């Protein structure tokens, strides 16, 4: 029995813009702009160095359906390199770079095999072992119906690998794309399921491996942690997956206790120490800070400057830093042990707390109805909680200030 080796990646989202990078300057932006390419370059460099038998890319190579031309050119160049290294590439397009998109087609070299808009098989032979790869590309943006039914059940001939860009049925966190269940996949008797679409790396099952490699580079605060791809060694009997990190910049969060810290400079030092620790571990980072145990610090900080100023002060410590460090937010967890219960304030706070999602939307309606609404995302549950907290805190603060 022959063992084959291939690389499994998905969701490259090349040239994807980073979301939520408010207040970032041109230097930071330039850095971020390069990061998806940097991650991709790492992937390609790894491939060229390691010479796997082939590579599978399961959708969302490009971020927008317009497929950034630069991204296409870079991708084409990378494929060229693989071609020169004699590494075949099997790829399918996903919901982000579906075939109906209005994009310029850059011709890819011959080693690249693209799946068409309906499920099909492609074969190759590695050291005598026939490998059949099943997959399809998204014909348009939305493929809500399950495609799994169209995948052929594997016979006894060689190794079968399934490429599927979609989400597990019933997962409400993500929009439904080509839904499937693990058991459905298992029924196909493939030796490996190379999934795409979900950016969070996860292994849904071990026998056979059903794997989301996640994206290769996080692009916003919800894509935290080290990103990369899988280096898979596979035989009919056995599978072995190794995660290879690629992310050039890692999104992460850090909770810092301010216990015993009274003065601003101590606070800055403490933060720096904590951040440096993370940097040592992860390299370049985009980090959210959460401050806890702020009782001792609160008065000092509150009095000296506003929260945004503290953020600026901390950011300044990392200007032009290498590795790259960008602090997105500082969340101050002030304990709401505010004064005595206020007879007057309480009903107001109660009002805020009582609001439902619709009420918040109502509050936003003025913005939504304005042309600004086009650029605003709908509030999430999380947002609502956050807003609630912020509103309460603001009320309390203002009360204190005015009273």
């Amino acid at each position, binding site marked *: 029995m022959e063992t084959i080796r291939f690389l499994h990646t998905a969701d490259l989202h090349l*040239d994807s813009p980073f979301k939520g990078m408010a207040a970032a300057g041109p230097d930071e*932006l330039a850095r971020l702009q390069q990061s998806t390419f940097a991650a991709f370059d790492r992937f390609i460099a790894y491939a060229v160095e390691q010479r796997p038998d082939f590579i599978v890319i399961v959708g969302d190579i490009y971020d927008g359906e317009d497929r950034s031309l630069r991204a296409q050119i870079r991708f084409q160049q990378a494929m060229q390199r693989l071609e020169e290294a004699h590494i075949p590439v099997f790829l399918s397009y996903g919901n982000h770079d579906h075939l109906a998109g209005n994009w310029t087609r850059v011709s890819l070299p011959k080693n690249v095999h693209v799946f068409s808009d309906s499920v099909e098989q492609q074969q190759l032979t590695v050291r005598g072992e026939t490998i059949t790869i099943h997959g399809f590309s998204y014909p348009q943006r939305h493929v809500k119906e399950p495609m799994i039914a169209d995948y052929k059940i594997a016979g006894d001939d060689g190794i079968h690998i399934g490429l599927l860009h979609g989400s597990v049925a019933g997962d409400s966190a993500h929009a439904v794309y080509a839904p499937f269940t693990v058991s459905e996949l298992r029924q196909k008797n493939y030796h490996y399921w190379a999934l795409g679409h979900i950016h969070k790396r996860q292994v849904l099952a071990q026998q056979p491996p059903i794997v989301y490699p996640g994206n290769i580079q996080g692009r916003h605060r919800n894509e935290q942690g080290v990103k990369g791809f899988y280096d898979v060694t596979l035989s009919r009997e056995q599978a072995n997956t190794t995660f290879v990190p690629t992310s050039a910049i890692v999104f992460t969060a850090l909770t810092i206790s301010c216990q015993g810290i009274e003065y601003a400079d101590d606070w800055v030092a403490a933060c720096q120490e904590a951040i440096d620790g993370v940097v040592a571990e992860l390299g370049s980072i985009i980090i959210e800070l959460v401050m806890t145990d702020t009782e001792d610090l609160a008065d000092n900080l509150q009095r000296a400057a506003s929260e945004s100023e503290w953020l600026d002060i901390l950011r300044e410590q990392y200007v032009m830093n290498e590795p790259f460090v960008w602090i997105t937010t500082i969340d101050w967890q002030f304990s709401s042990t505010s004064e005595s219960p206020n007879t007057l304030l309480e009903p107001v706070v109660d009002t805020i707390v009582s609001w439902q999602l619709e009420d918040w939307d109502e509050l936003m309606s003025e913005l939504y109805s304005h042309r600004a609404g086009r650029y605003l995302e709908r509030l999430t549950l999380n947002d609502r909680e956050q807003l609630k907290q912020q509103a309460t805190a*603001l009320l309390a603060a203002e009360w204190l200030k005015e009273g």
Partner: protein
Amino acid sequence: MKIRKIVLYGFGQHENVEINLQAGVNLLYGPNEAGKTTIQQAILHILFGFPQKNQQELRYEPKTGGKYGGCLYIEDKEFGPWMIERVRGKSSGDVTIHFEDGRTTGEEELKRLLRGYDRAAFEAIFSFSLFQLQGLERMDETDISRTLLASGTTGLDTLWKIEKKMDKEMAALFKKAGRNPPMNQKVKELKELELAMQKEQRKLETFELLTIRKKQVDERVKALRNEEQQLHEQAEKHQIAMQVMPLQQQQKQVTEQLAALPSESFPADGIRRYEELASKQSELQSKRLRIVKEQQVTAEAIVMRPGNEQRQIERWVAQEAEWHRLRGEILSAEQELRVLEKKQQQSKQRLGLTDAQQLAIEEMDLSIQRERQLEPLLQEQTTAEQQLQALNRMLAEAESERQEAEERKVLLARQQPTDAERQQLAKLPEFKRQLDEAKARVSVAKQSTNRAIPSFFMILGLLIGAYGVWQQDWFIVTVSLITIVAGILLWKKQPDSMEDLHDFIHKHEVHVEGMQRLKEQVVEHQRQCQQLEEEIDRLDRKLQRLAAEMEQVHHQKRQAGIALKQAVQGDPIDSTSNLQENFRLLREYQDILAEQQTWKLRLATAKQQVRTWVDQVEMLLGPVSEDTLYEQLRQELMKQKASKEKDFNRKQLLKDLESQLKEVDTFLASVQQQIEELFHLTNVSDKEQFYAAYQNDQEAQLLKRQLTEVNSQLALYSKKPLTFDWTLPELERKRTEISERLQAIRKEVTALVDEQVKLDHELTQMGASQTYSELQLLFEVKKAELEELAKQWVVRKAVMESIRQTMSGWKEHQLPAVLSLANTWFSRLTGNRYRTLTLTAEGYFQAVTAGGQSFMINELSQATKEQAYLSLRLALASELSDRAPFPVIMDDPFVHFDNERLSRMIEIIKELKPSHQFLYFTCHAEMQSKWSGEASMIEIGKQ
């Protein structure tokens, strides 16, 4: 919350006052000036602080200057019993709160205990006097709502403030139609970015078009290049054809021409051979002609003299010397004769002879003897002449000397002194004497002569005159005049002799000197005259002596002349002048004549001989000149000899020519034969034909060479023969077509290549362009920033909205409750005269009667107005009992009430007793009876 006890340390007129209060209604009675208001104020002061010193309100500091302040003991359901003490301290006083458990706190805790109420808010609801009941008519819904909602608590205002602030902050963040707020700006930026992105995208969309175009261009270029290649090949073929086809044509033409020519052979160098022979032939022929001609010439015989003549001539030639001698003799004789003639002439001239004399001379005696006779005579005459000449010279000399002396004498006579001079000289001694005299006088006069005296007289006179004029004394004036006159006279009288004398001496001294010089000159003159006289005498004597001598010599000379004349009387010429010479010349002359005679004879003889000779020769040769006779003779002889030789030669030549002619004839025959052979060889009969044959042959040779040439050229292009289907014009046309096409292709290719480069560049640029992703990223950043701002905005909105909602909740739920309670009480108080208190559409209160009539508050009677207001206040207090369970403090508000309404009022208060403590201050004693035991009585100033 209830006040259990009031303790005043010092407050206004109260000092160390302690008032115990009940939970229900407390009636505090006191007449005017008992201190009721003071106590009321004390409560408010202690709870809410002493008024600032600059405020209108009284501070009630004790005039005695004792302890200021007091304390309240308070029962509180929520916080338990507590005590508040306020004493003098900072301007609002120092406050201390004591709890039952011993805990003490300060202001902050107080705020909480007072539920956030301040004095104004407290007073608005819980503390009122009659005066404060006024003004209900001025209240509108908002005021009442406000009052109602928190009854003017500080907190409420704060909330209002917060709400306003939030509104402001929101507006600062975002305005619907705004432009400047950050969110609006962000939106604008986003919009711009979006546009920029769209633009960029559209630009990038051209990528595919450009790619397609590039492919097309590439293909087109390739196709064109191919075509170009083919055309080039074709053009090359045509090029070859262009070169080969004329060659082929030439080849064909030459071959045809060659075929047309007769193919007879022509000897290799036939023409040369022929021409050689022909030239030889003509040469020989001309030679022969010459020989024949010569023969004819030579055949003529030569004329010669007969032998005897020839011999005579030879003889004459042999006698040539003799002839020359004769000729020479004639010449020399003639010469000699000419010389002699000349000599004769010379002598004749020298002697000055006439022709007659000439003949005579030939007879003249010129012997030496005669010469000797004449010579002494001549000598004598000559000597006398010489002496005469010498004497003449001496005589002239003496005479000129005497002339000279005579002239000097005249000169001297002119220098003789004049008579005047002589007279002056005579006066000289007189002058001398006068002079000496004068000199003597001068020396004397020098010692005297002074002018002081006359001067004195004149001054004196003036003085006296002046005095006289002054004294009017005419006498004295007269005296003075006299004195002056005397002075003047004295002055005048003074001699000028001194000056005269000096002049005199000077003049006469010069004069005397001149006189002396004149005297000396006269003496010298006299001496010279004397000398000259002596000289003249001496010269006269010498002249006399010389004259005598001359007389004598003259005589001698005359005698010698006579002797000579006698001696030469017979001679034709006078030879006496120079005797010897004359004789010699005459002798020579005689010699010349003799010689002439001799030579004339010799000449005649020689001439005779020559004439004879010439005549003989002329007989033979014809007339000849005497001079060239022998030359002719010699020529004649030579001629004869030459003729003889020539004749010999001629005969010889004839013989030679004969043999030559024979030889030439032989050659000619041979040449003719050779020519014949040549013609036979070429198969022609004459020269013209032979040459035509040669021409043909030459042409054929040329054509053959051309053919070879063409063939070799053709061989260069291809081994096998090439065949073409085109004609030359066709070919030309095709070539033009191809070149035009090629040009067009080149042009197109150039344009396309340019486009290729441009496309490549554009594509590369687009491929590398970050602009779009940069814009995208920037867009996301801006979006995030907008979201951030939106969140801030929403948070503010939430705060504002929550406040509004809470407030409107109060307003909407609590206001109606208060109103309905107030209505009930108002209705009760007025004995159902008025049914309700309602709010007008404008938000003002109005009272509605049971009959449905509406009255604005200010239309009501004073008491009714107060009742309306009390109803409202109490309703408020009642409604707020949970949040603000404060005691109600009233300062005689019921005074205008009639008994009926008062008792109804008391009823209502009784109802409120459980939830509120009441402190009722009054100065009306009858009030006690009205309350009838419902209230605990406290008399102020009676403790």
